[in-house]
C-alpha cells in the first residue's frame, strides 16, 4: 500500500461560513495502480489532491484525518520534510497547462530545477536528464525545444512538459488533476496515451482526477465517485461501469450522449443542481436530486458500505432496508 488516506476532511473558512470541501474520505492506492476520482465540478477532487500534496492555501486547512504515504503521515510533517517528498516521491500534473508553467523561465530551467533539487545532480547532468525526459514524453527535437519558453508551445506540448517535469525524479505516485480537460479531443487522446505509456515504463501509481467518465473507463483500474466532498461510490472500473450502484453514478452514466448510441431518445436527466456547499442539505447530499430518494435519505447520512468489493454510500443498498431490493433490479 503506497498511499492511504484516512478520514480526511478539508475545510475552507470563509467569511460567510465554512465550506467542508472534502468530508471524511478514506481510500488507498497501491503501487503501480491507477486510481481515478470522478465527480462533478466542485465535488472536492482538486482539494483532495492538494491536501495530499500539502499545498492547500489559506483559507483552506486540513480539518482532520491522516494521509499516510509509505506509512508516514504527511499531514504531520514539517514543510521541510514535505519538500523532500514533493516533486520527488509524489509529483503532480495540473489541469491548466497554459498557466501552470512559469512564463518567464525556459522550460529546461523549470525541469532542471526539480531535478537538481531532488536528485542532487550537477547542472550538466541535470540538463541531460531534462532532455532525456522531454524525449520520453514525446517532444520532438527535445534539445532545442528545451530552450523554449512555455508560450512558444501548444497546450498539448506544455502538458507533456508538465508530465516530463513531474516524472523527472521518478516519483512513486503521480497525481494528475484533470490533465486532459483543457485540451482538444485529438490532443486529449495523445496525452492519455502518454500517461498510460509512462505508467508502463516507470511503474508509478497514478491518482487520476477527472470528471470525464470516458477517460476513467479507458484508463483507470479503480474508481472513486465523489459528490459534494464525499465518496459516494468506489469500485474497480469494470464493476463500476457494469453495475453502477449509486443513483448519482447511474444518472451520470445515462445522461451522457453516447457516441455509439443510435437512438433519438431524450437523454436521461438528473434534476436540480448541486447544493450550495455552505448549506449542505441534511442527510444524503444527493437526496434532493435523487429519483429514488427515501424518507430517511433527507434525515441522515448513509454510511459507505461494501458489497462484494464495491463500495457505495446509499440507503438503497442497506441489507436490512427495503432499498436492499433495488440491487436486484
Amino acid at each position, binding site marked *: 500500500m503506497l498511499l492511504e488516506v484516512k478520514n480526511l476532511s478539508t475545510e475552507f473558512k470563509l467569511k460567510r461560513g465554512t465550506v467542508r470541501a472534502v468530508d471524511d474520505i478514506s481510500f488507498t492506492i497501491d503501487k503501480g495502480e491507477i486510481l481515478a476520482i470522478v465527480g462533478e465540478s466542485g465535488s472536492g477532487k482538486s482539494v483532495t489532491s492538494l491536501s495530499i500534496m500539502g499545498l492547500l492555501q489559506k483559507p483552506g486547512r486540513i480539518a482532520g484525518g491522516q494521509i499516510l504515504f509509505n506509512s508516514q503521515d504527511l499531514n504531520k510533517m514539517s514543510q*521541510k520534510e*514535505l*519538500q523532500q517528498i*514533493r516533486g*520527488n516521491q509524489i509529483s503532480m500534473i495540473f489541469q*491548466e497547462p497554459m498557466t501552470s508553467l512559469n*512564463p518567464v523561465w525556459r522550460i529546461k530551467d523549470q525541469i532542471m530545477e526539480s531535478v537538481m533539487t*531532488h536528485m542532487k545532480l550537477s547542472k550538466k547532468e541535470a540538463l541531460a536528464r531534462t532532455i532525456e525526459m522531454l524525449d520520453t514524453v514525446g517532444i520532438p527535437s527535445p534539445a532545442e525545444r528545451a530552450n523554449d519558453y512555455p508560450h512558444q508551445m501548444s497546450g498539448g506540448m506544455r502538458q507533456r512538459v508538465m508530465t516530463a517535469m513531474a516524472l523527472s525524479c521518478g516519483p512513486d505516485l503521480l497525481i494528475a488533476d484533470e490533465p486532459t480537460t483543457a485540451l482538444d479531443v485529438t490532443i486529449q487522446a495523445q496525452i492519455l496515451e502518454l500517461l498510460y505509456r509512462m505508467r508502463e515504463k516507470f511503474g508509478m501509481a497514478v491518482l487520476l482526477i477527472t470528471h470525464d467518465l470516458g477517460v476513467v473507463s479507458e484508463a483507470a483500474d479503480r474508481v472513486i465517485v465523489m459528490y459534494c466532498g464525499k465518496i459516494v461510490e468506489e469500485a474497480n472500473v469494470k464493476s463500476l461501469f457494469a453495475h453502477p450502484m449509486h443513483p448519482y453514478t447511474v444518472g451520470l452514466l445515462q445522461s451522457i450522449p453516447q457516441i455509439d448510441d443510435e437512438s433519438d431518445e431524450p437523454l436521461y436527466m438528473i434534476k436540480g443542481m448541486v447544493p450550495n456547499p455552505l448549506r449542505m442539505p441534511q442527510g444524503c447530499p444527493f437526496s434532493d436530486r435523487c429519483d429514488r430518494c427515501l424518507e430517511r435519505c433527507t434525515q441522515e447520512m448513509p454510511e459507505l458500505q461494501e458489497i462484494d468489493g464495491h463500495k457505495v454510500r446509499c440507503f438503497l443498498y442497506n441489507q436490512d432496508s427495503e432499498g436492499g431490493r433495488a440491487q436486484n433490479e
Partner: protein
Amino acid sequence: MLKYILKRILMLIPVLIGVSIIVFLIMRVFSPDPSPIVLGQHATQQATEAWRQANGLNDPVYMQYFNFIKGALTGDLGTSYYTKTPVVKEIFSRFPATIELALVAIVLASIFGILIGVISAVKKNSIFDNAGMLIALIGVSMPIFWLGILLIILFSGTLHWLPSNGRIDPLLQPMNVTGFYLIDSLIAGDMYAFKDTLRHLVLPATALAMYSMAIITRMTRSSMLETLQQDYIRTARAKGISEGKVIRKHALRNGLIPIVTVIGLQLGSLLGGAVLTETVFSWPGIGAYTVACILKSDFPVVQGVVLLIAFIFVMVNLLVDVIYAFLDPRIKYSKAKG
C-alpha cells in the same frame, strides 16, 4: 521589435505637435500679456506696443504658431522674454538638476517601494504588511510640498543635519561636464563634493520619492499577491522547492514585471512633482523655473520645456515597453507573431 520601436517613434511626432498646440493655445491665446513683466515698472504703452510688435505678438495666431514651428525645426526655440537668453540654453542649464533629482528619487522610491511591497505581500496581513501599507497610504495622502517643509524644519532648521536648499555647496561646485553633480564630482575625483551633493539630495529626493514610493509599494504588493496566486507558483511548490526559493525565483521575477510600467509612469509624474519639490527646496531645476515662467507668461520657455518633458515622457514610456518586452518573453512573442 525594431519595427515596433520605429512605429512608436513615428507616433511621437503627432503627439509633440499636439502638445505644442495645446501649450500654444493656453500660453499664447489665453494667457495674460507678458509685456508688463518683461518691460518693468517704466514701461509705457508705447514701449509695450513696440515690444509686442518686435516679438511677433501682434501677428495672427496661426502665423505665430507657424513661426514657432519653423524655429523649433531648426532647433531654435526662441529667446526667453524675460532673461533674453536663448531658451535652449535656459533649459539645458537647469535640466540636469531636475533629472538628477528625479533619478535619485525614483531609485529611492523603487528600492524602498519594492522592498516594502514584497515584504507586505509575502507576509500578508502581518504587522509588517499593515505597517507597510500605512506608510504607503500616508505617502499618497501627504501633500509633497508640506512634507518637504516638514523635512526642512526637522532636519535643517532644527537638527541642522542636512542642507535645506541648493544642489551643492557653491564652493565645491565641480566642473560642469555632464551637469549631474554626482557624476561630475566622481569624474573630478572629488569625494568631498560627491558627499556634499548627496547630502543636498537627501531631503528633496525623499520628499519627491515619497508619493512614488507609496504607489510602487502598493503596486508591488498587489502584483506579488496576484502572482502568488498563479498556477505556476503552485507548480513550483509541487516541485518541492523551498518557499524562499519559490518567492525569490518564481514569484518575484513575474511579480516585478508590471512594476516596470509603474516605475516608468512614476518617472513621468516625478517630473510633475518636481515642480513643487523644487519650489520648496530652491532646487535649481526646470520645474520651479517653468512655473515661474508660466506665471510670467514667458511663452518661449514654457513651450520649450513642455515639449522637452513630453518628449522625455514618451521616450520613457517607449523604453519601459521595450524593457517590458525584454523581461517578459511572452511580449516578444506576440510581437513576432502579431
